[in-house]
C-alpha cells in the first residue's frame, strides 16, 4: 500500500541550524499518528514540508504517492491546521465559509455543529479571538474538511479542557465514520495518548522513536524502593534514568516485565509503575544528544 505520507532522507537546513536531519518516515493511510517532541525539535518544520509550505534542503517527501509541492491534486486532499496560522481580516463565519470552497468533501453540517459546540462567535473577527478560540476555528476547519490527509500542529494551544475533550471525541467519531490519515503534534501527550495508533518522537531534527502506541504501553517501568533492592533488581537491565534521595532510589527500566520479574520485585518490596506515554517521551526526547539511538529499540 502506498503510504499516505512518506519521507526519505528529509533534511532542512536553516542558516547554521539543522531543523530536520535525514528524517525517513512512512505513515500508513487510515491512521492517527502522534508527532511528539520538544519545542524546536522539528515537528512544525516537518509538517510544513509535508504540506508544501516549506521546501526541503535535501531528501524527498511524497503525500498520497506524489510530491505535494505545488501539486494541486495532492493539495486538494490535504488540510493543515497550524497553531501559528495567520488569518486574513475576516469574521469567523467568513473564514469557515471560505475554507468550504476548497474541499470537495467539506461537511457543512459538521462545521455548523462544531462552531456551536466550541461556542465560537460567528461574527467576530478571527484576529480579535483569544488564542484558544483561534485554535478552535482551526479545528473546525481541520475536521469539517474531511481531507484525506489531515495535519494538526498543536491543535490544543490555549483550548479549555471542555473544548479539548470535545475535540478528541469529535476527532475519533469523525475518524471512525470517515477514515483518513491524521498526523497530530501536541505537548499534552497523556491527554491525547488514547487517540494515537502510532507515535513518532522527533528530537533535534531526528526521529528517535517510531512505534505502535500499544507497544509503548508498559515499554518502560519505574522501579522504586530501597536503593540496594533497586540496584539488585535492575542489575543487567537497560536503565534509562536513576534518581536517588537518601536511601531511596527510583529507576526507569526499559523493556517489558514478566510475571517472574514482578514476583521478584514484590519480594524485594519494590514499587512498580508503568511509564505513561508522556513519561516515555520525556525519557526519549529529554535525553542528552549522545545516546538516543539505543533508545529507539524500546
Amino acid at each position, binding site marked *: 500500500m502506498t503510504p499516505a505520507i512518506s519521507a526519505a532522507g528529509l533534511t532542512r537546513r536553516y542558516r547554521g541550524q539543522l531543523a530536520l536531519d535525514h528524517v525517513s518516515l512512512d505513515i500508513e493511510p487510515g491512521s492517527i499518528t502522534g508527532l511528539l517532541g520538544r519545542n524546536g525539535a522539528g515537528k512544525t518544520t516537518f509538517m*510544513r514540508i509535508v*504540506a*508544501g*509550505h*516549506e*521546501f526541503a534542503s535535501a531528501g524527498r517527501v511524497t503525500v498520497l504517492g506524489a510530491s505535494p509541492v*505545488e*501539486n*494541486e491534486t495532492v*493539495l*486538494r*486532499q*490535504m*488540510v*493543515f*491546521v*497550524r497553531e501559528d*496560522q*495567520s*488569518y*486574513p*481580516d*475576516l469574521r469567523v463565519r*467568513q*473564514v469557515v*465559509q*471560505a*475554507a468550504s*470552497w*476548497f*474541499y470537495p468533501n467539506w461537511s457543512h453540517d459538521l462545521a455548523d455543529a462544531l462552531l456551536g459546540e466550541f461556542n465560537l462567535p460567528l461574527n467576530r473577527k478571527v484576529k480579535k479571538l483569544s488564542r484558544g478560540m483561534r485554535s478552535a476555528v482551526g479545528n473546525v*476547519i481541520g475536521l469539517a*474538511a474531511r*481531507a484525506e490527509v489531515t495535519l494538526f500542529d498543536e491543535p490544543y494551544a490555549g483550548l479549555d479542557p471542555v473544548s479539548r475533550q470535545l475535540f478528541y471525541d469529535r476527532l475519533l467519531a469523525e475518524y471512525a465514520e470517515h477514515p483518513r490519515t491524521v498526523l497530530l503534534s501536541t505537548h499534552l501527550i497523556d491527554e491525547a495518548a488514547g487517540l494515537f495508533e502510532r507515535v513518532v518522537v522527533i528530537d533535534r531534527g531526528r526521529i528517535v522513536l517510531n512505534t505502535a502506541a500499544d507497544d509503548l504501553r508498559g515499554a518502560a517501568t519505574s522501579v522504586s524502593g530501597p536503593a540496594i533492592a533497586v540496584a539488585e533488581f535492575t542489575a543487567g537491565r537497560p536503565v534509562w534514568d536513576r534518581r536517588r534521595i537518601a536511601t531511596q532510589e527510583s529507576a526507569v527500566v526499559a523493556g517489558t516485565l514478566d510475571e517472574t520479574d514482578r514476583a521478584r520485585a514484590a519480594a524485594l518490596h519494590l514499587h512498580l509503575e508503568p511509564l505513561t506515554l508522556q513519561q516515555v517521551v520525556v525519557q526519549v526526547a529529554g535525553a542528552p544528544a549522545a545516546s538516543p539511538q539505543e533508545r529507539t529499540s524500546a
Partner: protein
Amino acid sequence: MKTWLSVARYQLTDRNVFVIQPWVVLALDFLIILVIVAQYPGRHGQAVYVGALAGIYVVLIVTGALSIARQLPFALALGVSRRSFYAGTALLALALAVAAVYGLGLTVLQLIERGTGGWGLNLHFFRVPYLLAGPWYLSWLTSFVGLALMLAWGMWFGIVYRRWNLAGLLSFIAVQVLAVVAVLLIIGGAHAWHGVSRFFTTLTIGGLTGLLALLTVALLAGGYATVRRLTV
C-alpha cells in the same frame, strides 16, 4: 480553474481591502479637491487641472500588496497551491474584475464630469490631459491597464515582503530604482535622448496603453516567478 475562481471569491470576501478602501480614498480625495476648487475656482472660469486621481492608483498598489501579504498564508493552509493563488488573484479577482470594473467606474465618473461641466467648476478631476482625454472606450482601456499595472506591481511587492521581509522589500525597491537609473544612463551614454523624446512625443495614448499593458504582463510574470519560492 475552479480553484482560481474560489481564490478570487476568497479575495473578494475581505471587502475592506478590495472594494471599500479604494473608493473611500477616491471619494475623500475627490471631495477635498472639490471643496478647495469651490473656494478657489480657476480665474475667469478657466479649466482647473488636478492630478489627484493618482490617489486611487496608489491605493491599488497597497491593495495588491495586501492581497498577497494578508491573504496568502491562510489560502496555503487550505491546500491552495502558490500558482493557483497567484493566478486566481491576478487574473480573476484583481486584474480582470477589479481593474475592469474600477476602470469602468472611472470612465462613468469621467462622463458625468464632462456632462456637468466639471462639476459646475470646470474641474478636471477624472479627465486627465493626454492620459484620460480621448473617447470613453479609450479612457476605460487606459484606466483598466493602469489599475491592473498598479495591482500587479503591488502584488509583487507583497510577495517579496512575505518572502524576504522588510530588508527584502527595501532591496527590491532599490533594485528598481537602480534599473531606472541604469536605463537613463544608457540612454545618455548612447546619446539617444533625442530619439527617446521623439518617441514619447509622437506616442499616441493607445500606444502608451499598449506599453503599459506590456509592463503589466512583465510584472505579473515577475510576481509569478517569485511566488513559487514563497514559504509560510
